[in-house]
């Protein structure tokens, strides 16, 4: 094999290999738009986090503004403490409500932030005090059956009772 031909082939190989790594990083991994190390952390306490997982998205008005970075149980209050990492550039008021939501029936679990009217903004390390826990389907069904039994099989009354039950299970704290 001629020297320059060999060099050419190795050069082509390395070039397309590096191009493949760049493609995976930029197009598939979306490295350009997601800034990993930029941002600040917030904490939120929930009664029940349902199926929330690490790295689940944090959304405000449907826009992804951060990720769930840590989940642990407070040993004193027995409540789940969720650490949220919010991208730099997004600020939320002190009275923001954090709720655990599900996209669709079987979709991913995410945290939704609804900003309030307070002029003071949450800073790094602050705790979101108003939270809404995940709606656990089993509890909801149990509540529905309980209401139905109590209502004596009256169908309209039972279906009317399910809506307050849902509100009670995932009530604002």
């Amino acid at each position, binding site marked *: 094999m001629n020297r320059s031909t060999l060099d050419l082939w190795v050069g082509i190989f390395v070039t397309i290999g590096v191009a*493949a*790594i760049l493609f995976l990083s930029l197009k*598939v*991994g*979306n490295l350009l738009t997601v800034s990993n190390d930029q941002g600040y952390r917030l904490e939120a306490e929930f009664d029940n986090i349902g199926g929330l997982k690490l790295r689940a998205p944090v959304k405000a008005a449907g826009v992804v503004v951060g990720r769930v970075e840590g989940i642990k149980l407070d040993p004193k209050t027995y409540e789940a403490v969720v650490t949220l990492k919010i991208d730099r550039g997004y600020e939320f008021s002190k009275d923001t409500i954090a709720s655990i939501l599900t996209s669709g029936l079987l979709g991913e679990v995410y945290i939704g932030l609804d900003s309030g009217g307070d002029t003071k903004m949450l800073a790094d390390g602050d705790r979101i005090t108003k939270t809404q826990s995940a709606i656990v389907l089993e509890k909801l069904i149990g509540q529905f059956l309980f209401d139905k039994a109590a209502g004596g099989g009256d169908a309209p009354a039972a279906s009317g009772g399910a809506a307050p039950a849902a509100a009670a299970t995932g009530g604002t704290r």
Partner: protein
Amino acid sequence: MALRRVGRATISSVERLGFAARFSLAVVVHAPAALRRLRLTLREIYFSGVLSLVIILVSGLFVGMVLALQGYDVLTRYGANESLGVLVALSLVRELGPVVAGLLFASRAGSAITAEIGLMKTTEQLSAMEMMAVDPLARVVAPRFFGGIVSMPLLAALFSTMGIFGAYLVGVRLIGIDAGSFWGNMQAAVDFRYDIVNGIIKSVVFGIAVSLIAVFEGYHARPTAEGVSTATTRTVVASSLSILALDFVLTVFMFRGLGV
């Protein structure tokens, strides 16, 4: 009699292990020599990397196309067609890219390295080099080892890229999933640090394992025609097994605590 045979087999395998450890250390020590002999290393990158391109690209394309077909079949039962891009990208970048590319690399390039070094030993070229005060570890082994380490991550990345391209062809062009949701969901789910960097680390580790096994088996082969063929077989078997075992260990360490 049987006891004596068991004892001899044990002693010889322990001896082999000791030699392997000493040899690995010597190869790692001599690896920088590959940079001084850049011409030889480039030649080995050509043999192990460039010549493996066709098999890697074609199999990547087909693996991606099959993944898309099978994934679509299952996902459509749950009405989650749009997640096809996520399924394909995550399984390729995390697992299939490094592992399947590593297996192909072991059988395509690893076996060739073993056969070449084994034949050099059989025809006493290695001894001749030592006579001429040329260290075969620096002249023959180090460039092949280094070439394998350079080639393997690039091949794995090309495999994943071709797989995603194949899935795009089948999913978007053939089946008709919306291209925006295919790429959008993929970009939302694939994380650079967790998925892509870990995939690249995996392929580097596999490259080191396969190259080390290949040069060791060649260097340690019995200097006969049968010995070289046995060594070649051992390379493919040992490197395939160690890729799969290493993959399990690495996956346990990389992806624990993510709820996957």
